[in-house]
């Protein structure tokens, strides 16, 4: 009887594995194989000059040397991080604020659904379309300059696209607008998951709203915050479409808005899979290291508290 039962369990478990097959196969084909072949490719000289294919010739670590030797890569990493932080700080600030307001039963906000939809809407627009829109809005003869001149704030059109600050600022602003809705929804879900009796207890004990936010909401929100931080970091490091379209692929002025992936894209003009691969591998490590750092720093205080 027992044996039979065991067999039945094994037989039944088999279905679990069968249902896992599609996901495993998808992962292997679309993630694991490309990942391995990227690493493999990074050791080869492999590009196209006109219509002539050059390579693949094994060159060992030459591609990595060329990338790291120039020192430009650090600059592009810096650009990427600067634009990410510029966008992420207001994003997390407004998301926390809106999340706290939406989840606060005392406020009884009206039309919550409406506002939640509206703040999420920018995310539905394609990033490239959004960047095109901004490019037109902020061009030298565009509407923003027209309005500013019309209001008498400036007398000459401000050339947004030739100043480092304004280009980076615009990229960060666009990323902020596009993603703060998404973050708000995530944080809101986390806040609504917090036991409301904790809030009530705090109120009975006479805690102020600020105290409640810092002492109850934030600590309990940590897992979600961690998730938001890490996903946003990974997304930020892969920032591409917005600056690419806004600066027409150049990252100008003087490549100060060129991100890592835009640099990768530059190598794809000549189908340079070797350099592209090496750059991707480096990016993979950078992302890994930064994610671990965030993970560690976010998790530390909790241990101390115990």
């Amino acid at each position: 009887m027992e044996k039979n039962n065991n067999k039945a369990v094994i037989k039944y478990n088999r279905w679990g594995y069968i249902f896992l097959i599609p996901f495993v196969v998808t992962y292997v084909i679309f993630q694991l194989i490309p990942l391995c072949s990227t690493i493999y490719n990074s050791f080869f000289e492999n590009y196209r000059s006109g219509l002539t294919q050059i390579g693949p010739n094994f060159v060992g670590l030459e591609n990595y040397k060329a990338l790291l030797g120039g020192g430009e890569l650090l600059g592009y990493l810096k650009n990427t991080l600067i634009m990410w932080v510029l966008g992420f700080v207001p994003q997390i600030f407004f998301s926390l604020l809106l999340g706290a307001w939406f989840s606060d039963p005392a406020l009884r906000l009206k039309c919550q659904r409406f506002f939640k939809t509206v703040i999420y809407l920018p995310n539905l627009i394609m990033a490239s379309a959004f960047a095109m829109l901004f490019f037109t809005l902020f061009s030298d003869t565009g509407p923003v300059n027209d309005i500013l001149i019309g209001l008498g704030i400036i007398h000459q059109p401000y050339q947004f696209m030739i100043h480092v600050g304004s280009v980076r600022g615009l990229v960060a602003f666009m990323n902020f607008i596009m993603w703060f809705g998404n973050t708000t929804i995530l944080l809101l879900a986390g806040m609504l998951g917090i036991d409301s009796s904790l809030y009530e207890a705090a109120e009975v004990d006479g805690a102020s709203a600020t105290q409640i936010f810092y002492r109850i909401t934030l600590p309990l929100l940590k897992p979600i915050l961690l998730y938001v931080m890490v996903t946003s970091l990974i997304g930020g490091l892969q920032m591409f479409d917005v600056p690419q379209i806004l600066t027409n692929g150049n990252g100008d002025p003087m490549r100060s808005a060129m991100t890592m992936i835009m640099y990768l894209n530059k190598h794809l003009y000549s189908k340079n899979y070797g350099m592209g691969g090496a750059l991707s591998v480096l990016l993979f490590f950078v992302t890994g290291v930064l994610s671990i750092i965030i993970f560690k720093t976010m998790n530390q205080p909790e241990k101390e508290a115990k």
Partner: protein
Amino acid sequence: MKKRIFSMLLASAMVFGLVACGSNTDTATTGDAATGGDTTEQTTAAADGSVLNIYCWNEEFKSRVTDHYPGYEATGDNEGKIGDVTVKWNITPNENNAYQNNLDENLLKQADAAANDKIDLFLVEADYALKYVDTDYTMPVADLGITEDELANQYKYTQDVMTDSNGVLKGLSWQGCPGTFIYNREAAKEVLGSDDPADVQAAVSDWNKFADTASKMQAAGYKMTATANDSYRVFSNNVSGQWVQDGKVVVDDNIKNWVEMSKKMVDAGQTGTQDLWGDDWNKGFYPDGKVFSYFGPAWLINFCMAADQEGSIANQGGWGACEGPQGFFWGGTWICAAAGTDNADLVADIMRQLTTNEDVMLDIVKKDSDFVNNKPAMEKCAEDDSYAFDVFGGQNPIAMYCAGAEKIDLSNQGAYDQGCNEEFQKAMKNYFDGNATYDEAIEQFNKAIVEKYPELTTE
């Protein structure tokens, strides 16, 4: 039990779907790898196919064929018919190299493509012509049965561009692209006191006078040119050597002259730093844009400067043309037959009709104000006032074009010109805008070139 079968079906369907996807990509890549080498065997064209595939980057050639090729009949947006043959237009914009990327992928697959999917005819520009001409992917014009005698009337430079390193002619063009100085008549009258081409020419006959006129224009509220890049071709066509010499990128002295002049003009506010083709560049096509001049060949004025837009200067015939400080040419479109075409006879006939048939070509001049690639015919037109351009307010610029076309020298044309020209202009924009010193801008240009062409070195 039913449930089980059903779920089994679902699972297997999903797995199967994935496997199918995977194998698809596989065949595509092996197809890529298999080509590359020998295409000579296919150049002896097979019997006429039923589909003619044309690859190009804008509507210009399509409208030429539609309007002037006898027997062409449009049946849809990107489809037409010549006799029994269906013509399929594959139009990919030039932006960010998209046209060439698409063309390259398909040329590399040419050997394995089904007869009706093979590229039969594609267009190239002078800047990157050598990239295609010097390969087996283009078919020699002689193999199409077009003899040298038939081409005797064409301008020699149009054939030099398309001659490969073995001296074989690989493509033909219907147009010549000598450039002229295109000026705003209104502004010329206001500032120079006359809009007569001879008087304006006297004011811009060399770069010193050009600079003087620029100051006068500025005082009257006009920009001399819309952007610094407008005058780039005039300098880059008059260089003393190729961009790439022995695998090394060299910035010619004349290009440095352009940088020097442009920097002065930008600093003085006589021109802008925007990209060509952008909105800020286009503004000058209208009176409110307040731009005195553009440098360009016939196609710029007839095809790009908004001649069909109500209110544009071109529409009112408000432009004039004179030779300008230096002769130059810009662009031009060449027709190439793709090796492996199954419609060789039809491709040959399109080439013959558009590039050698005098009646068709004169019709193009009349209708589209283009400068066509037929020396005797153009010399006749130069003297015939009925060929005057409306956009030039009735001026007939053809004599000027004829003289310019004779002088075009393409010995300094190279395979890397497109990338070098683009990247140089992009990098210098930083210098003009004051975001970098000249040396920093050059350094950025070098970086960009090595990214684009890993086989090159820089100074």
